[in-house]
């Protein structure tokens, strides 16, 4: 459990990061919180020649609100997400999600940007980003670009991030007033990946669903959005059950020690139902 040797770089600006990426290309890896990359390096599955530590880039941190948009620096830690009063007020879904990630020490180091950029379908933020319609600000030698979450996750460990780009910010328009949200995660124990999890952002008007976004974690090669056709209907037991049924069909899980494909399909459905019920209870009106 010892990594292979590498050269370590700790730039203090985004420009410095990009310059290093240009120099070293795919020989380099970006180090955010380290809780995904370092274990892979310790197992010697990953052996980058250059490691670019983002930890000293101050401009990658912090949580701001501009109009209705929350802007979260990519190096904001899960711990900071959990503790943010701004997020607690405007984006409690993110706080609820981060609270279910790993454990307190890992959340001290683990970052939201690292969680998203890794392209791991087991990570929790990607589904939440899909449900929230987030955008990611990517910076590289060709400048900045803003990529919507639904165009970002291409496959397992495959994202829209080019090898010479770095994710700098996550932008999320806060859900409309009165929305209810929930992240429901089934896991074997603290620190585990989801057996299945579902993120829901829901808005009701006069007892009828006005908006609903649902996305699933760890039941397909990437996080996936679920189209449940709930808008315009009351969210009764039958509608919730139907949404769950659709989730079981939409997902494409792979068996592991957490369960076989059948179980994971069923749990994807259950987590959708659980998240919908909770989100509904949290909706105003």
């Amino acid at each position: 459990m010892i990594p292979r040797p590498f050269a370590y770089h700790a730039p203090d600006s985004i420009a410095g990061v990009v310059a290093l990426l240009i120099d070293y290309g795919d020989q380099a890896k970006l180090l955010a919180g380290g809780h995904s990359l370092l274990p892979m390096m310790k197992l010697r599955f990953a052996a980058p020649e250059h490691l670019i530590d983002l930890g000293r880039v101050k401009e990658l941190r912090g949580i701001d609100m501009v109009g209705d948009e929350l802007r979260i620096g990519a190096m904001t830690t899960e711990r900071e997400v959990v503790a943010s009063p701004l997020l607690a007020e405007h984006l409690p879904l993110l706080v609820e999600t981060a609270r279910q990630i790993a454990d307190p020490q890992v959340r001290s180091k683990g970052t939201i940007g690292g969680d998203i950029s890794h392209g791991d379908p087991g990570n929790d933020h990607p589904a939440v980003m899909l449900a929230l319609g987030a955008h990611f600000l990517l910076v590289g030698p060709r400048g900045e670009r803003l990529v919507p979450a639904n165009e970002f996750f291409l496959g397992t460990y495959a994202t829209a991030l080019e090898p010479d780009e770095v994710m700098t910010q996550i932008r999320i328009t806060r859900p409309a007033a009165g929305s209810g949200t929930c992240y429901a995660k089934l896991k074997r124990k603290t620190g585990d990946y989801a057996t299945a999890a579902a993120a829901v952002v829901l808005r009701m008007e006069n007892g009828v669903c006005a908006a609903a976004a649902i996305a699933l974690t760890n039941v397909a090669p990437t996080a996936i959005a679920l189209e449940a056709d709930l808008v315009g209907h009351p969210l009764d037991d039958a509608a919730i059950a139907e949404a769950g049924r659709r989730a079981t069909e939409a997902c494409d899980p792979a068996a592991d020690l957490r369960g076989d494909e059948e179980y994971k399909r069923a749990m994807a459905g259950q987590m959708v139902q659980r998240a919908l019920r909770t989100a509904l209870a949290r909706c105003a009106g």
Partner: protein
Amino acid sequence: MAKKTAVSFRLNGTAVDVLVESRELLIHTLREKLATTGPHIGCETSHCGACTVDLDGLSVKSCTVLTVQCEDSDVLTIEGFAKGGQLHALQEAFMQEHGLQCGFCTPGMITRAYRLLQEIPDPTEEDIRYWMSGNLCRCTGYQNIVKAVQYAARKLRGEAVETSHPMMAEVTV
């Protein structure tokens, strides 16, 4: 031999300098170069928390931190808790509430609990179980660890403390 980097940081309040390969993990530097063997290695995959140290005011698992990342940092380990021969309230609490058995997880457990009590001075049992869930213990079943953290919290708040295990409770005369 691989190229090495000089790294300076403060360990339990004292400035230290080490020469390390960039791949060296903080837990190895602490244990093998700085004779700080309180933090232990239990899993190497950042599950067990035996290697927990306090890094710049955050609880971290030092098996998943590179020493080169610690330049100019403040590192606190279990060795930094007792002051002037006086045990820290948490140390006293773990002993009084029987919050340890083999002792292997204890340094990480106490170091984590220290940061928890900095952030939540009056935690409920539920709080403690949630915020201590990054530290595994194979011996105690956690129940007495929860009591120990509550004992320390009371003591740190200046309240009276008493062990849950009175010495003579089962001795009949």
